[in-house]
């Protein structure tokens, strides 16, 4: 299982990559393995403002429907429209082409409180939830 060092994580298996005042958000390798073949991604409208922990997106595999929560508060400034045609990018490249959305950070302090790779590895080892 791949858990890149440079990213931040939530216990709900989202990852965050900070780029300036924005955060690129996706789901982890562990999450996509648990989900299995992803067949549908419901993206939020650009411009939507979310609080940390609110539902951001819904990812559906053949058998499962899974919520993706906003790991940080802020405004959705970009979504990965490629997932509408190719939802399996989430399986193939969870940290790359399978990203879900970009959130403009409302409070950069939230990022510091997220899990680092070692802490997230512990969460994943326990089997998640």
């Amino acid at each position, binding site marked *: 299982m791949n858990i890149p060092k440079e990213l931040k994580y939530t216990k709900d298996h989202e990852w965050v990559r900070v780029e300036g005042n924005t955060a690129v958000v996706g789901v982890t390798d562990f999450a996509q393995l648990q989900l*299995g*073949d992803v067949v549908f991604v*419901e993206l939020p409208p650009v411009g939507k403002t979310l609080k940390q922990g609110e539902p951001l997106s819904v990812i559906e*595999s*053949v058998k499962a429907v899974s919520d993706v929560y906003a790991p940080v508060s802020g405004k959705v400034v970009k979504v990965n429209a490629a997932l509408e045609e190719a939802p399996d990018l989430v399986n193939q490249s969870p940290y790359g082409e399978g990203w879900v959305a970009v959130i403009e950070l409302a409070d950069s302090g939230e990022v510091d409180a997220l899990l680092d790779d070692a802490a997230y590895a512990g969460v994943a080892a326990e089997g998640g939830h």
Partner: protein
Amino acid sequence: MTARKTPLYETHVRAGGRIVEFGGWLLPVQYAGIKEEHQAVRTKAGLFDVSHMGEILVQGEDSLSFLQTLVTNDVAKLADNQVLYTPMCYPDGGTVDDLLVYRQGPNDYLLVVNAANTAKDWAWILEQAEGKNVSLENVSDDIAQLALQGPLAEKILSNLTEEPLAALKYYWFWPEVTVAGKRVLLSRTGYTGEDGFELYCDPGDATYLWEAIMAAGVPLGLMPAGLGCRDTLRFEACLPLYGHELSAAISPVEAGLGMFVKPDKGAFNGREALVAQKTAGPKRKLAGFAMVDRGVARADYPVWAEGRQIGHVTTGSYAPSLDKNLGLALVEAAFAVLGQAIEVEIRGKLVAAQIVAKPFYKREGK
């Protein structure tokens, strides 16, 4: 109740199967992945552990007359070594279960029932048999079952048996043949919409048979297959799943299985109710639909048309062989017409869909 393990449980874990609970049993939902396994069954072959299925023996001189009152299809049509699919109904026409009847002899039948329903069916059958000259035995724990499904199933199995497999026709069985040196009951049946076989064996032989079939089949593309693709395969072929397309509240006539209800054979549980539905036409009908706008329908989602709810989704999924999001829904009969526009309520939003023909998938040839 603790979930039970089939004799193949350790084999599944060793092979990397992801174990889930289904119908009171611990079984693999997938090995390599649902789409990959699905595709293997459609184009080559897949091997399933279906040892969770229940088996009930009905023997004795009243066997046939008892079964005729118990189930809706006509058991009298069976010859020895022939298999029949049939619903089993309550007097009000609701469905107790759907099952296979194997005629082993004039007074000797094997019923194969859904795992989650085995205890309920057994109690129901015992109650219905009161006063009849039949002997009943729940032999579910004495039988393990493997399903080898897919266009290459016959070729794979022919490496393991001397029997002329091409002579075994669809919905027939051989009561005692040797496969990989083990005695099995072999039937040409399945739940995937593909050609294939089901092997009923001693639980002690299940692992050996599994390994032997895998060894013979893997070079030809055989994959171990889990419950996940079993569901997508049966869904594309529009084979009903109890608890979804059939239930105590859904009759076989509503579910589009009227051809398995035979009023002419005489009295049986549910006859009056089912005849009334057949004559007047059922108020609700099971219809296939395709999503028009983006979204995946799931079981129990409300279905709308003309501004009101007209039914619910019984099964909905991405259909791997068709690369479409499809569904089955039980809707008011007036809306179960090809081309009808409907909407599926997905997380509070109405998403456009359209009634389409069933089955979604039909294999070429037979």
